[in-house]
């Protein structure tokens, strides 16, 4: 197949809400190696094997703000709008969000006996995206992507497509979100995916993940239209495994395919990649497969590229994770520092790449590769270019 290069898309600004705080606190927490995992307090967890997670303890609630997922999005949007303006016609501003869970907590409440129609509508997985579009006054396309834990990467790709198409939008608020709630904690607890230890990506002793919550948004524009930017999305691709509903393909074929296509779209070779933000969930299977795929696709260069996972600090924020990781890549480029992998102390011999450990590393990556995997065999890769100071 003849593949066409796609036009880069500018990432103008970012806004987040995480267990570490807003963008500034997120970044400073990552470079200081803060572990934001704590005992979950917002809902009962005593009956679960594991009651730990990356919970946001303080969240400014708006009186008419809707569900927690919407509240997270509003907080991230406030952070974003403190750094950039939506200076386009509201009809030309789109919203594209990724989520694994949508408004599922509202569904729990609706089924528990709250019969309000508002609750029922919010339980649909696209409810929070529409709530954010209304809050921001965006009247362009409002899309929700749900490629499980790769959603926050796919959403940036779809947003870039909207901008490249010209006809649909001039600005897009894109990103991902997910909340910690009983539903998802019960599910992962039942799967025994959660660790009772700390999250240890790529560590010999890793025994599972912990979940986190958050929302991460970026403002995207056509590169030729952007007066300023924190970076560019050069390429994006997704690919399915077609092997299992919950486990990754043992050979990582879908992930390998997504990385290859994203690099080709960006017209970037392995020699150009300066940094890899790995999915790095700290499950025994994920980290081994991801390492093998990166070695296969990037060849000899793989061992020379600094790499990290931020899930040791935040937990796995599901739909927010890939957007948070993309933002981290761009901040690393701007600040000249790559955050280290919190929780990684004793490297697994099968995970033998250059993971940044112990302390942040002075480096100013220009081109970053970010990888994501999710339930259903969803894989995604982003190729980003930082706008170094």
């Amino acid at each position, binding site marked *: *197949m003849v593949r*066409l290069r796609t036009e880069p898309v500018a990432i103008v600004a970012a806004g987040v809400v995480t267990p570490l705080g807003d963008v500034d606190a997120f970044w400073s927490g990552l470079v200081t190696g803060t572990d934001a995992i704590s005992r979950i307090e917002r809902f009962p967890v005593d009956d679960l094997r594991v009651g730990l997670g990356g919970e946001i303890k303080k969240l400014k609630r708006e009186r008419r703000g809707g569900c927690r997922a919407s509240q997270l999005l509003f907080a991230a949007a406030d952070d974003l709008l403190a750094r950039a303006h939506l200076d386009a016609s509201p009809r030309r501003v789109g919203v594209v969000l990724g989520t694994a869970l949508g408004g599922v907590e509202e569904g729990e409440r609706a089924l528990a006996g709250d019969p309000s129609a508002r609750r*029922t509508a919010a339980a649909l997985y*696209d409810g929070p995206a529409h709530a954010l579009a209304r809050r921001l006054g965006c009247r362009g396309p*409002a*899309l*929700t992507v*749900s490629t499980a834990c790769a959603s926050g990467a796919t959403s940036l790709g779809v947003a870039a497509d909207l901008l490249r198409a010209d006809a649909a939008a001039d600005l897009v608020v894109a990103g991902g979100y997910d909340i910690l709630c009983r539903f998802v904690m019960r599910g992962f607890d039942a799967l025994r995916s959660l660790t009772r230890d700390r999250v240890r990506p790529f560590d010999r002793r890793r025994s599972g993940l912990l979940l986190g919550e958050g929302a991460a948004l970026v403002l995207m524009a056509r590169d030729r239209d952007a007066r300023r930017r924190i970076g560019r999305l050069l390429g994006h691709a997704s690919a399915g495994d077609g092997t299992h509903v919950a486990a990754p393909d043992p050979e990582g074929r879908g992930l390998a395919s997504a990385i290859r296509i994203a690099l080709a779209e960006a017209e970037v070779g392995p020699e150009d990649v300066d940094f890899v933000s790995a999915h790095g969930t700290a499950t025994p299977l994920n980290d081994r497969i991801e390492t093998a795929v990166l070695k296969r696709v990037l060849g000899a260069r793989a061992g020379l590229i600094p790499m990290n996972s931020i899930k040791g600090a935040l937990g796995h924020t599901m739909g927010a994770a890939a957007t948070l990781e993309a933002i981290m890549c761009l901040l690393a480029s701007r600040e000249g520092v790559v955050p280290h992998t919190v929780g990684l102390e004793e490297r697994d011999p099968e995970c033998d790449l250059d993971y940044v450990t112990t302390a942040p590393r002075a480096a100013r990556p220009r081109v970053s590769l970010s990888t994501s995997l999710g339930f259903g065999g969803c894989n995604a890769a982003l190729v980003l270019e930082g706008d170094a100071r």
Partner: protein
Amino acid sequence: MTGSEVAAVGVVTGWGRSAVALPPDAVRAAAGRRVIAVEPPRAAGERFRRATRECQLGVAAVEALLREASLGPEAIRGDETALVYVTAAAYGSSNRAFIRAIASSTLHFPYTAPSAVPAEVAIEFGLTGPYVILIGGAAATIDGLWQATLLLRRGQCRRALVLAVETFAECEDLWARGRWLVRPPLVESAACALVVPGPWRATYAPAPAPSPLEALARARAGETLACAPLIALALARAAGDAGPVTLTGEWRGRRAGLAWEAH
């Protein structure tokens, strides 16, 4: 630029197993029933022992597409076929079952994710190409069809399946509360379109009004949410119209449009 066209559409609804089975007037045919349910054919094999009804419907829609196109499964297997999946709510029943602890076992949880349906379809047919999952009603399916044309144009695939599934029966009481979102009869459906390189240029834009095909699909099928644009395509093809076509779809106040026109 690579153009595109729709090569075939497979449809399974509460009215029957093709577009031809749709009644002339869905409201009249429903005779007061709020939900027209569909029981998918049970896919064979141990692998489907735990699969949900919506997963089975997804597989059934792709099988219907292959029959319609006179293709074998090998024609779509591999990494040159993209899968674009769209649903507004075909995760509701599995979420409900999990919340109510009807199915709180370890193995049910992954099926609560919308990604479970395309996963089962991808496993069944060996699809390992580009992969997009959109959540929403008919407007999201227009977005999905447009995504398929982009993937073809960029050379990321040689063909794309755009699949939509909607189920209602298990959450009928919840849908009764959301009357401003949906108009009965709610008709359970699954539909799949095969989009391939072709002569037509696809133009994607907001639509000010429903297209004739949107109105036709609504009248004949009833409320099928994300399946509606694909059912509209099937109706157009059943009427012998395989040429330029204009589709629209509405959801939550947004109407999107996709027109396949001559270059």
